[in-house]
């Protein structure tokens, strides 16, 4: 529920994308010198994660997740079809991010722009390189018929750090997915069964986004921090603490900084696992 006081304040906020970010940055730097972030968090503290209960899609797996105020809705759709010619014995997974115009005044309707494509690819790379979904198991007839998974990621409310929110929501949605089982009848034609199977997933992969403002490195930037940042990077950590994918999205970092962020991300993944385990356990009970 929105507060009306906050609404009034929004009219005079300086931070609307592109304007006033230099004023905001000056203020942030002053606070960071005192060891504080504008929203009161410590440098490597993530905002609160919540998964909204209920069913909001007609897909085979979903998650409405809020990270701080950033809200995303991910729905997984399944189908069957031909595999890609270069991977005849693997299922197909397609990622798509929609930056809905209702999520921010600066998002406009239309086909995906560079930001939404970059986000989709950041999530996709994390999932693939960590082998979160076992695509080898999503084959019905090798070379001919496989499961197709569509990961549709909807951004509903943009308050910073979409990459981490989308990755986490997608991981949850995939883990909760149930798809109809397809068997082959005696003449080799596929038949859709009433029985359902889970999407085969392994240890969750997680993305962590850091920004640099001045010389300060911050985890999970809110929108103000994202806009004021000098540099931004997203890295994915798998269940064994390995780094699976990286995207330097803005500006530059030094090698020592990158090593430090990797260490922090590895620690944070362990912390987040407890949150995630809770969510997945509840998800399985209701499924």
């Amino acid at each position, binding site marked *: *529920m*929105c507060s009306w006081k*906050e*609404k009034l304040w929004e009219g005079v906020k300086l931070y609307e994308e592109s304007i006033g970010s230099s004023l905001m940055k000056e203020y942030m730097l002053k606070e960071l010198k005192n060891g504080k972030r504008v929203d009161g968090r410590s440098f490597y503290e993530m905002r609160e994660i919540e998964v909204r209960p*209920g*069913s*909001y*899609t*007609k*897909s085979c797996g*979903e998650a409405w997740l809020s990270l701080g*105020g950033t*809200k995303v*809705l991910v*729905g*997984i*759709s*399944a*189908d*069957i*079809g031909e595999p890609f010619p270069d991977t005849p014995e693997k299922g197909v997974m397609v990622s*798509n991010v*929609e930056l*809905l*115009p*209702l*999520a*921010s*005044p600066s998002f406009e*309707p239309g*086909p995906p722009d560079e930001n939404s494509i970059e986000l989709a690819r950041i999530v996709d790379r994390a999932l693939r390189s960590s082998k979160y979904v076992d695509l080898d198991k999503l084959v019905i007839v090798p070379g001919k018929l496989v499961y197709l998974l*569509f990961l*549709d990621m*909807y951004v*509903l*409310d*943009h*308050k910073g750090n979409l990459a981490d929110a989308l990755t986490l929501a997608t991981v949850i949605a995939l883990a909760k997915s149930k*798809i*109809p089982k*397809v068997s082959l009848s005696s003449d080799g034609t596929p038949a*859709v069964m009433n029985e359902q199977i889970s999407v085969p997933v392994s240890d969750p992969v997680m993305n962590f986004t850091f920004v640099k403002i001045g010389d300060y490195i911050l985890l999970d930037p809110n929108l103000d921090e994202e806009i004021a940042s000098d540099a931004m990077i997203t890295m994915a950590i798998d269940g064994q603490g390995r780094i699976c994918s990286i995207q330097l999205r803005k500006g530059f970092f030094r090698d020592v900084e990158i090593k430090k962020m990797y260490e922090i991300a590895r620690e944070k993944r362990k912390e987040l696992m407890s949150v995630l385990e809770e969510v997945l356990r509840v998800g399985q009970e209701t499924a």
Partner: protein
Amino acid sequence: MLYVERRPEKLIDENGLRTDGRRPREMRPIKMEVGVLDRADGSALVEWGGNRILAAIFGPREVHPKHMALPDRALVRVRYNMAPFSTPERRKPGPDRRSIELSKVIRNALEQAIFVEKYPGAAIDIFVEVLRSDAGTRVAGITAASLALAEAGIAMRGLVAACSIGKIGDVIVVDPGHDEDMWGDADMPIAVMFEDRVITLLQMDGPMDESQFNEALSLGMSCCELVYELQKEALRRPFVFVERKVVGGGQTV
């Protein structure tokens, strides 16, 4: 391919009950939540049967591109969009012919209620996202968008409430569900602004004779009135909460 739909044997059984167990004049459960999004100027989530519709308003704001601005009134724009995951079979993202038509009629339905002359040169953007579809998405969308407009503080003559009426065989039913939408004989969405008691959206698909049409129209009006009562309650709720806190001795929570 993966999800095949079969027509139920009977849309109304021998006891006069519909496929989801409702009687002909029984509506599905409706839940309305106002102010679900932070960044939009106004927003609402409507859960109507299996529908999940999210509406958000931006505006009044500067018109972009500028040449679209109207000198004497606000430019009202509506985008009705179905999410790829709103149906069991994935929908291709992006507008199709159906959603473009619906955007147009929804815009008209809502524009009648807005004091557009109060905002010359400005844009009021209305986004209706169908997250989960289960028949009657346009009427649920109008209902949600109207709530979001009110929350955004846009000057309006009144709320616009909407509902659909269907026909199965010769029986007029209210608020058709998925099966009835797919295999029913007629479907008539209707939107009403009760302050002036005017109909701002009316579409029909399927034949009805005179008495059936009259019944459908008056049933449609009464269903919209029920929705309208719910809308008022949904908007009032946050204020009631504030009022109670003050009366209760000024305690802060």
